[in-house]
């Protein structure tokens, strides 16, 4: 009965708790559905549990209690390898394979999935232009790329086998502000075309407001609120309001400095 109510949910978190061996609770009673095609942004300070929540989806971590469902099926019942291959994963440190060229980095999962070589090479070039990179970079090694280029390759690699779900853990956090802004806008354009189900983790309200369909605000392992960016800005919730106030204070002091 409850399943039909959630039929449009790509990912569901049901009564999730997570604690480490010592007993410290990282997540407490988390309930949330991520709709197909939306960009759900987990916003919170470090230690709020947002990265942990993300890793429950591709089973890099398993909840202490409760259930995570992907496509209506508990992640425990998925074959973990199949589950991960239908979920693209992008992390802040990128984690490109330093001994592989860009082409082999992007083409690794297609190769493991036994795609013919020609199709892999075609797909690699298609993805490189999709993320705004010159296809000539295909033969470069990661160390020969800039930070922004590396993260673009990271995104292309996550999209290689066209997974319906994308998990992004502060993917633009380590980039300089200009490159970060570029990649954020490219992400928006990309998402407009691809309509992936995206779960995105950040501590940056500006980034959350820009990218999110809905913002899930986390604090101390609890989900505080889930709302769209416009509602978030008007929110009466004290925590959400404090984020907005800090953001507004930044803006006004910037404006003051500009005036003087």
């Amino acid at each position, binding site marked *: 009965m409850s399943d039909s109510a959630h039929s449009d949910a790509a990912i569901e978190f049901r009564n999730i708790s997570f604690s480490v061996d010592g007993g410290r609770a990282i997540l407490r009673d988390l309930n949330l559905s991520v709709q197909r095609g939306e960009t759900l942004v987990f916003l919170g300070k470090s230690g709020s549990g947002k990265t942990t929540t993300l890793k429950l989806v591709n089973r890099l971590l398993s909840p202490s209690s409760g259930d995570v469902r992907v496509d209506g099926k508990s992640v425990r019942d998925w074959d973990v390898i199949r589950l991960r291959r239908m979920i693209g994963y992008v992390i802040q440190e990128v*984690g490109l394979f330093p001994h592989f060229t860009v082409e082999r980095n992007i083409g690794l*999962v297609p190769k493991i999935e036994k795609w013919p070589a020609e199709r892999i090479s075609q797909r690699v070039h298609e993805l490189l232009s999709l993320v705004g990179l010159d296809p000539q970079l295909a033969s470069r090694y990661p160390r020969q790329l800039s930070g922004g280029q590396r993260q673009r390759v990271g995104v292309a690699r996550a999209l290689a086998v066209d997974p319906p779900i994308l998990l992004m853990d502060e993917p633009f956090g380590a980039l300089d502000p200009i490159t970060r802004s570029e990649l954020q806008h490219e992400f928006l354009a990309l998402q407009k075309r691809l309509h992936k189900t995206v779960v995105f983790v950040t501590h940056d309200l500006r980034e959350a407001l820009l990218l999110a369909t809905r913002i899930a605000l986390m604090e101390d392992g609890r989900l505080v609120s889930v709302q769209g960016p416009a509602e978030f800005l008007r929110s009466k919730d004290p925590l959400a309001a404090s984020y907005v106030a800090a953001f507004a204070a930044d803006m006004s002091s910037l404006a003051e400095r500009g005036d003087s």
Partner: protein
Amino acid sequence: MNVWQFMLQNRVELLQSTLEHLWLVGVSTLLAVLVGIPLGILITRMPALNKPVLGGANIIQTIPSLALFGFLLPAPWFGERADRLAIFALALYALLPLIRNTYAAIQGVDSAVVEAARGMGLTDRQLLWQVQLPLALGVIIAGVRVAVVISVGLATIAAAIGAGGLGEYIFRGLAMVNNQVILAGAIPAAALALLADFSLGLLERKLRPA
């Protein structure tokens, strides 16, 4: 007659001893590699085995080499042939650097790279062969290098149980109180160690990911 003249005069016998020495070191290293590297990999997969395996290899390392050769003498199959016994003992000593370096090399692969690999759905075997081993190879070879250099030195002691090699000259020279004879064994042994160190060093640098 100086050392060089002595070595030149005995060059045939000396070459024979050098080849014996290389045989002892080569076969024992090969055996140790075949056992040590898989053990090093195994303990990255099964952390519970970490302490017993590394601890065991450590204990072997603390046994004085002359005593180990002696201990093994009465063993049924080994006792029959001295070189067999020497090879086994040398392989035991080579285990620690191999296991330890293999373990450290694999654990040392950038955790972000490993997490990305797991997250994209590589199986453990694919993670090992496609990512961890290629990136760890340089450090593993460094372990082989240490093992070989130790073996070249230790193998001189194998002569004490009649396994041959360059140690024969050293023991003979000690008995004769003749430095020339000692040096005729020690100089080629040192040269072998340096050569092995140098060439494996080259290989190591070539395999170390930039």
